[in-house]
């Protein structure tokens, strides 16, 4: 009798002893309809990274990650991306085309070799790259991700923009289209929009020397606010919901924070004296004119001498000065010119590699104004607002920990930014996607599953 009880007990026990099941998470779409998702934006949306558009970069854009996660809450069908058929990809630095930048070893003018971004294929010819970029994939469209590298908010409304931007031309359904005309071909039910970075970035990347910051006021296609409104309205023709991200303060990104303002390290007093002697006339002139500018070198690190066309000095050839500690040096500055070409000491660094205090504050106030417009638009149109500005701010101060990964705005080692110092790594895109998901979940009372950022790659090292 007792034995029988024991047998029953043991049997009951064995049933209980299987792998525990956890089902704490139930994906739900909340008040949103994710069945057809579409995204618009610039290079960040396109998946541009490491200075180029390439296949795996596009596959790991925050948009592609979102499309994948939206499947759990009802997204249907293929998410079409205008893939470029190359892993080395193609990007542009000014008018020069190049393959993506990967971490490799480069030897500088002093003969020392160090880890640095180098082209994935240094032998790729301009012609090959032009063909790669010029090959139309429009026949595979229409596309769900219409992020266009280089696009400003105003560009998305411009008919015939394809003739100005090959990154749009390669997937434009019709060359006379504006980018927003692609939206009607997809008829999305849900959209994401992250645009406006280039409206200041293009100005900033040129060191404030060319291009202009897009003004807030003005008609669609000219002013920021009206253009943004027009883009949102294009989406709202079919979409019942969406998310719009604001613009990070770009002066915190590694492109502007990696090269120090004072890289001129002097260890020889003779050299210090020679340099100072060379600037005696300059200092005398400035003193005579009652100007505050002085150039002075000492042992140790020194601020570089830079050109500044905005200086209030009568003699154009004297429009140079030493850089202030809060002014920024662009990552694009030729390192060899600094190390061996006497840039910053004997020769003023050209203004295109510098963001002066004035340029910086012009950018900062533009970003602030844009973000106000974006926040208003999110409220007026009842969209989720994704605070990417806050994310970057946190990354540049305390850093952000997520899933065991520490994100900072440090170049390469900060995990968030790719080898170009501007665009995101797959891991940075995963962080961005999770930030979008948080905002969307909150706005639409949805439960979209987040990704594990540790499943994505940071900057790949050799």
């Amino acid at each position, binding site marked *: 009798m007792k034995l029988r009880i024991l047998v029953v007990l043991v049997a009951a026990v064995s049933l209980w*002893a299987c792998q525990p099941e956890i089902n*704490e*998470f139930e994906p739900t779409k909340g008040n949103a309809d994710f069945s057809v998702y579409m995204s618009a934006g610039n290079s960040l949306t396109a998946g541009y990274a490491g200075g180029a558009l390439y296949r795996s970069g596009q596959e790991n854009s925050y948009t592609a990650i979102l499309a994948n996660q939206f499947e759990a809450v009802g997204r249907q069908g293929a998410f079409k991306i205008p893939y470029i058929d190359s892993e080395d990809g193609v990007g542009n630095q000014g008018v020069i085309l190049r393959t993506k930048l990967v*971490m490799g070893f480069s030897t500088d003018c002093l003969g020392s070799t160090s880890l640095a971004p180098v082209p994935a294929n240094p032998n790729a010819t301009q012609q090959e790259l032009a063909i790669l970029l010029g090959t139309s994939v429009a026949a595979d469209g229409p596309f769900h991700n219409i992020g266009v590298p280089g696009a400003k908010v105003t560009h998305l409304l411009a008919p015939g923009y394809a003739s100005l931007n090959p990154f749009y031309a390669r997937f434009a359904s019709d060359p006379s289209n504006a980018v927003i005309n692609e939206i009607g071909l997809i008829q999305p039910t849900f959209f994401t929009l992250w645009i406006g970075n280039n409206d200041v970035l293009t100005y900033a990347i040129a060191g404030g020397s060319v291009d202009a910051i897009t003004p807030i006021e003005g008609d669609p296609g000219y002013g920021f606010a009206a253009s943004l409104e027009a883009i949102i309205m294009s989406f709202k023709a079919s979409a019942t919901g969406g998310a719009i991200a604001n613009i990070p303060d770009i002066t915190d990104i590694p492109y502007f924070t990696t090269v120090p303002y004072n890289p001129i390290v002097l260890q020889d007093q003779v050299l210090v004296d020679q340099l100072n002697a060379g600037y005696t006339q300059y200092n005398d002139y400035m003193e005579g004119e009652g100007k505050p500018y002085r150039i002075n070198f000492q042992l140790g690190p020194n601020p570089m001498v830079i050109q500044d066309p905005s200086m209030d000095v009568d003699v154009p050839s004297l429009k140079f000065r030493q850089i202030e500690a809060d002014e920024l040096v662009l990552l694009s500055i030729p390192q060899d010119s600094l190390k061996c070409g006497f840039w910053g000491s004997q020769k003023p660094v050209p203004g295109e590699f510098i963001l002066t205090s004035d340029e910086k504050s012009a950018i900062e106030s533009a970003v602030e104004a844009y973000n106000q417009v974006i926040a208003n638009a999110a409220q007026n149109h009842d969209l989720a607002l994704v605070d990417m500005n806050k994310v970057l701010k946190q990354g540049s101060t305390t850093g952000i920990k997520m899933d065991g990964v520490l994100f900072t705005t440090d170049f390469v080692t900060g995990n968030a930014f790719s080898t170009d110092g501007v665009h995101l790594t797959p891991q940075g895109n995963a962080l961005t996607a999770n930030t979008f998901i948080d905002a969307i979940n909150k706005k639409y009372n949805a439960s979209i*599953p987040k990704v594990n950022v540790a*499943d994505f*790659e*940071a900057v790949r090292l050799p």
Partner: protein
Amino acid sequence: MRKQFILTTLLVMSFIALHAGGYQVRLQSSRSIGMGLTGTAMQMGASSMFYNPGALAMMQSKADFSLGISGINSLISFQKFESDITAETDNSMSTPFYVYGAGKINEKWSVGLAIYTPYGNSSKWEDSWAGRLLIQNIALQAIFFQPTIAYKISDKIGIGAGLVYATGKVEIQKGLNYGPDSYVYLDGSTSNIGFNVGLYFEAIDKLSFGLNYRSEIVMEVSGGDATFNVPAAVGTSIPASNKFDAALPMPANLDFGVSYQATEKLLLSAEINYVMWEAYKELEFKFEQQGELLNSINIRDFKNTIIPRIGIEYVYSDLLTFRIGGYYDPSPANEKYFTPETVSLNNLAFTLGLSITPSEKLSIDLSYLQIHGLQATKTYEPDQFGGTYETAAYIPGIGVSYRF
């Protein structure tokens, strides 16, 4: 010769799994396991050397040998917070064991040697699982050697003490954020000493009390091997081969038990264990090379726990004895520092036992322990990694005792 062979086999097989709160494993007697892992206030012959050396003084036979082994099948399930990502461990069966031999010198004095495995943890996650940057797999093993002496003060009171020589081994592998194949593998071993003292007191007829204290033993690994698998580009700052120091405390235990011989056939046993997990404040790694970059202090801040236990033994016949028991073992882990390396939930456990006694001298003891780690959502805040965990373990055991 044969005994030696068995002992060696046991040592080689020994691979101990977690599942008694933190990394303590209290599977030191089949009889005790059957009764909710109680034993402090029971006369358990040679097995008392672990549970209460004071009770060893009350040994009735001239000599007592006991050995046994358990097979821990432990399962951990995980679902990441706000996500549909799930993971399970793929733990191999671990086998804590015990070997005891004790004898009476005279009416007052008894001596013996106990070898047992009171701490361990073995969790193997998939290399690519969601928490790979925290832990991929971990194996802690500790074997304690305890020569013991006990003195019978009177027919009612016994005291005993043992010197513990502990040897331990640790292996840890965790992923690094330099790509999917990057990891660090740490491998170290160490030894240290501690003690185990106990008092056994038969207050009135049929009612006994036991008090036992087992000291903390800190396992300090010095010069363990660290292997880093990272891209060559970072090889200068992170050398592939390095040495590390780390320390892991095996916490002190204060056990108080009471047992009552209700009838000739029925024994009731209850006790509480106070486990001083507060000793586990942090896990610090120091590296011989590039310490500035690689050293880390990982906060654990465990808290002390109190484990209530209850057990019943019923002598059915001269041949058969049945046992049943249970306990509740609350998690010592800190809410903010809950890591997947030691998935320690609030555990609810029940136990069954059966002894077959073909002769007065020989007994074959079977036991079964099942532990259910109650589902809970926890985060390791320093890494912002969290999710819902649930665990289960089923642990059959067998032991043999021979006395004369």
